């Protein structure tokens, strides 16, 4: 079983790489032609564009064309996007627990229903404290306990701050699941249920599918969307605009309403905190406390299967920023 598996994988990889290289070359040639051929007709509309190395150009708008960067190779997926430090801010005052983020994420990543890469908890830190909704993606910690314990470098931290899993490398020891204090990781306990269309998509650690039995998966901050200049799907899908996403180096985060804010300002104005700061994991996800909420507070007795919130140490009044 193992041998045949391996063979098909490597053949598929080969085909996939060949195809990718082909597309990349064609795409870039077309792009250059469109941008630089002076013979084409002039237009009055000018657009200002940034080149990837930070230079500013003014070009005719009708000379611009859609350019989709090819998905990175496995090695590229391990390195990450240069110059970026991705960061997420979740505004608990705006979250009404509708779980649209979870649904978008599950649809986009083709996850099974019991795997919620971003999960909305109902929390209440103590009897006397208010209950609130708590959406929890992977925190993409800067001091990740999960990547430390991985014996084969299947889960890794990239230069853009994202923590990913390579399911072609994962040996399924589940040390990372034991090590993650946020219960963020999921395991493919059986043959994953996925359609033919999904299995035909070439695998990349940047989107995590097609998934494989016996390997770990988790929230990936959607780097394949970021490469297309789009937001992670949970950010886009939040009807309340409660999730902000952006680049810490640019100090800018944007939400689904298209509002862009200074990250530092958002943190300062709202006294943001990070979950379980005292564990020293340095999460890349910030929370804004549920102050002046725009929604009714969750009913903690609503769902009988919910356990009482465990951790009193992370109460809102006790932030250490």
């Amino acid at each position: 079983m193992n041998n045949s598996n391996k063979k098909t994988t490597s053949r598929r990889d080969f085909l996939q790489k060949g195809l990718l290289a082909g597309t990349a070359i064609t795409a870039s040639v077309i792009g250059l032609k469109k941008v630089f051929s002076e013979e084409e007709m002039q237009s009055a509309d000018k657009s200002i564009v940034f080149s990837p190395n930070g230079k500013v150009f003014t070009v005719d708008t009708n000379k611009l064309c859609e350019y989709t960067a090819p998905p990175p190779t496995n090695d590229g997926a391990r390195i990450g996007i240069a110059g970026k430090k991705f960061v997420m801010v979740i505004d608990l005052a705006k979250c009404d627990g509708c779980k649209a983020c979870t649904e978008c994420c599950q649809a986009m990543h083709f996850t099974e229903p019991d795997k919620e890469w971003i999960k909305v908890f109902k929390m209440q830190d103590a009897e006397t404290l208010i209950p609130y909704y708590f959406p929890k993606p992977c925190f993409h910690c800067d001091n990740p306990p999960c990547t430390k314990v991985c014996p084969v470098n299947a889960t890794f931290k990239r230069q853009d701050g994202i923590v990913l899993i390579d399911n072609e490398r994962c040996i399924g020891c589940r040390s990372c699941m034991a090590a993650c204090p946020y219960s963020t990781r999921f395991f493919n306990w059986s043959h994953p249920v996925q359609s033919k269309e999904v299995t035909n998509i070439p695998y990349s650690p940047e989107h995590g599918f097609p998934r494989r039995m016996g390997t770990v998966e988790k929230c990936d901050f959607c780097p394949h969307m970021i490469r297309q200049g789009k937001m992670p799907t949970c950010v886009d899908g939040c009807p309340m605009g409660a999730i902000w996403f952006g680049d810490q180096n640019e100090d800018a985060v944007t939400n689904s309403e298209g509002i862009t804010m200074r990250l530092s300002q958002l943190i300062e104005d709202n006294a943001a905190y990070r979950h379980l700061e005292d564990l020293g994991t340095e999460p890349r996800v910030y929370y804004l406390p549920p102050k002046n909420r725009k929604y009714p507070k969750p009913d903690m007795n609503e769902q009988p299967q919910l356990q009482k919130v465990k951790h009193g140490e992370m109460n809102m009044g006790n932030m250490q920023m």
Partner: protein
Amino acid sequence: MEHHSNLTIEQQKIERERMRAAVLKPLRTSTIWSKLWIFFLVTVIGIGLYAYYIQLSNGLKVTALRDYASWGAYISNFIFFVAISLCGSLISSILRLTNFEWHWPITRIAEIIAVSAIMFAGLIIIVDMGRPDRIYYLFMYYRLQSPIVWDVVVVATYFTVSFLFLYFPLLPSIAMCRDLLTEKPKWQRKMYKILALGWDGNHAQWKIVKRCVNILSILVIPLAVSIHTVTAWLFATTLRPGWDSTNFGPYFVAGAFLAGTGCVILGMAVFRKAYHLEEYITERHFNFMGKLMVFLCLIYTYFNVNEYLVPAYKMKVAESHHLNELFTGNEAWLYWSIQIIGMALPALLLLLKPFRKPIPLTVIAFFVVVGAWLKRYIIVSPIMLNPYLPIQNVPDNWKHYFPTWVEIAIISASLAGVLFIITLFSRFFPIISNWEVLEGKGIDLEELDEKTQK
């Protein structure tokens, strides 16, 4: 210890022949019981292999493991095997170095338990892997900062050293089998011949063997301590409340010595009865092992106080859920039975001489060993089920853990596998190291052989 026997050469010769006859007798005869026993073990192993086949083809879904209790009985079983494998180093090495002459007849029992347990520790961890087909990645892509890699290194090293620790003192015994078991089939005689490495009992060979055994006795102690400490670090290096404990290393080592001693007592009792070795494994040995067990129970109790009562005094929120679960919650009956029947009661009862007789001691050791297995279960699953964030929006069966028949079958097969290796070993090699026992009686076999040949 080098006390010379007052026996005459003739008496020494008689002693040597009696001993030879006694240790070779089980190799020469086979009872219906031993055949039934082997048949039983092979059946259990067969069922386990079938269960593993089911697990391989359907994935770990066939276990009760889910995303919260992602480690369970396999990992508990792994720690248990590592734990009992420490008995080899304790009995053979520490008692050897501290000059307790009474340990000679039981060293080999301890050593073969150690070797077979550590073998199956390695196997059971592979069973727990989601992708056993990628096991070689551990060597291709290993990262030294991973506790799993530390474990691979120490388990492999400990296996090698404990194997040599079994093999070197075995050489004179293999040579004895080669020379005396002439009625055995050809392949078996050939095996003895190869394994004996041309042993003819000359002075240089004795010198090498004794020196190697001495070196290994010293080498195996830090290794044994490190193997179980590293196993404890698999847990203690995480941030999980309940595992996040600086006490874990010594706590595991202390528990391992207790569990290992329990296993050796069981081994002594079974071999004594089955192979009629009452003359060599005497009540005196049980008495001493009982005393040793009191001592180890008390040490383990000390570490348990540190592990449970100190955090319980503070009752930090994160830890309180797991501690309450153990003290008064769902796991309470298991926790208190283990602590009382598997640790406290043995320490008290074994203070009294009548309980250190073979039969009561064997019964107590049995409870200690079962308690030791369950203790490792308690250390793994309840803690995984008490994470920092509440367990919400998941199917009900994710919130509890109780192994499925597949897990139970595979674990039973691994236990049967350990017993099978020990049984097989004892059918081919003397389970008592006769030359060492004679040496303990002041008879130098090398000298005696030289004198009698002349």
